[in-house]
């Protein structure tokens, strides 16, 4: 099979995603707004964890807050990818393309994954220093493979959420809604197990199992099981995203109502 053409196509889509992302978010702007925001958000939730629970709470919340930073790019920000086609009126070109819509959106999402990686690393180092937990920060950075899995799983969940949001102009509502759900149910600031129903919701959200894996890794406990669970959750959301975009394409041709346009 000739792989060079498909590689070229996806490469082009990644390239366009990067160019558009940089045009909308130039380096200078990202470094002076998005990155500080990530650091400050991480710091805020870390300190919040310490308000009721002192030193132990800060440590717990620091790990959780670092993971939460990922969602700014992968759940909230990534909705911009399909929304850009809606704003620019280019949906019909996506519908007529030789590539599947989800494939195009995934390729164009690469900058958001990179942004998640950069912001989580910067936040871990900066907040680790600010709250006197720099050795822990280094351990978290050593857990990069776990963070990468969380970045990918939350990104596909973010695209799945965006697929429902685009047609209803609900990207802000659903993207932020999911992020706040992760805060409430993902074991970010308070340990899971306080509310059973919230736990159940959290178990199917991205970040939750990855975070448990990361905590186990830092504590020196077995972590592969939770990592596998995070991968499984990500795979399930990927199926949801694929089905949702495919369904919308079919409905658009059949009913003339394009949820993506």
């Amino acid at each position, binding site marked *: 099979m000739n792989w*060079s*053409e498909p590689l*070229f*196509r996806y490469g*082009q*889509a990644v*390239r*366009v995603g990067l*160019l*558009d992302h940089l*045009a*909308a978010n130039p380096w200078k702007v990202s470094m002076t707004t998005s990155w500080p925001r990530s650091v400050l958000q991480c710091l805020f939730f870390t300190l919040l964890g310490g308000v009721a629970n002192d030193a132990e709470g800060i440590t717990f919340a620091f790990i959780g807050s670092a993971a939460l930073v990922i969602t700014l790019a992968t759940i909230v920000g990534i909705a911009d990818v399909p929304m*850009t086609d809606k704003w*620019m*009126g*280019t949906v*019909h*070109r*996506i*519908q*007529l*393309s*030789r*590539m599947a819509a989800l494939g*195009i959106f995934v390729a164009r999402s690469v900058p958001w994954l990179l942004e998640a990686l950069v912001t989580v690393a910067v936040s871990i180092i900066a907040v680790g220093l600010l709250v006197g937990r720099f050795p822990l920060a280094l351990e978290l950075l050593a857990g990069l493979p776990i963070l990468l899995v969380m970045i990918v799983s939350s990104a596909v969940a973010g695209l799945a959420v965006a697929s429902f949001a685009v047609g209803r102009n609900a990207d802000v509502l659903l993207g932020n809604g999911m992020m706040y759900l992760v805060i409430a149910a993902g074991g970010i600031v308070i340990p899971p197990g306080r509310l059973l129903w919230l736990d159940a919701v959290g178990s199917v959200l991205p970040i939750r199992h990855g975070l448990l894996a990361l905590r186990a890794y830092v504590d020196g406990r077995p972590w592969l099981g939770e990592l596998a669970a995070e991968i499984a959750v990500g795979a399930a959301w990927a199926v949801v995203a694929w089905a949702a975009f495919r369904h919308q394409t079919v409905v*658009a*041709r*059949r*009913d*003339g109502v394009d949820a993506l346009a």
Partner: protein
Amino acid sequence: MSGQAIVVDGVSRTFGRGATRVIALAEASFSVAPGEVVALLGSNGAGKTTLIKVLSTLLLPTTGRAELCGHDVVGDVHAARAVTSVVFGGDRGLYARLSGRDNIRFFGMLAGVSRRELRGRVPTALEQVNLTAAADRPVETYSKGMRQRLHLAIGLLSRPAILLLDEPTIGLDPLEAERLRGAVTELRDHGVAILLTSHYLLDVERLADRVLLLGDGRIRRDLTLAEFVRQAGHAAEVVVRGGGEPPALDGAHPAWVVGCSVTKENDGWTVTLRLRAWSAEVFRELGALFANVGVHDVQVREERLEDAFRRLAGQSAR
């Protein structure tokens, strides 16, 4: 209908159900040959864009069949898309933050143009539409005309056998519009089958070989351009003013006179003639009619397509 680039056979398209059901297209049937330009005319809501969307495979037909170079738009979607380009035009449909070159490259790739082909075709397409100098500027800095030309360049990149143009000159100044028509004419000369919709009858006049008139989703007329004008009623109106006695025009008129009226005024007369055709022969015969009277002024108004359209559209609506 073999050898036709576009074949549409009984295509209908409805939206909604029950009380909210709308018939956007009803039993449309026609064909377009390679190297032919067919214009779709009709008032807003007549079904023009719906037809373009069905042929471009963005919409499924509810009933009927359409083929593009022999490929069914429903059953053989990818092959149909491979031979067609659709240009919707307008201010949107481009990534405004990216350059024209980046847009054309990306959309060309989406349309199936290979990497090797893109390398050669992108500069050529930009040159064809006179956008080479602006190619590396963000599209958001482009004028309306430049965006429209970029849309066309994207449409041409895959070297389609069939080009679907939806209001290609909308929002363009007369010079830009003329440039765009020039590009379309060149494509026709290269054998591309072109189906275009337009509200500007100048587009039709300058480009079209045939005219399909749509009304309420149905094709009401399928005419050559000349037939279109003739069917509307008359080709020209001649107004002659003079003094003294008016010419004797009572009784039988020549065959090329469709209608005639004579008005007497205090100091003269006015004769208004509507002519079926306007040619050198008609001009000579007209001169003979007025040979023995005192003519002060002659005005000739050729029938505009707007008038033809208005008349035909009005007839179609009844």
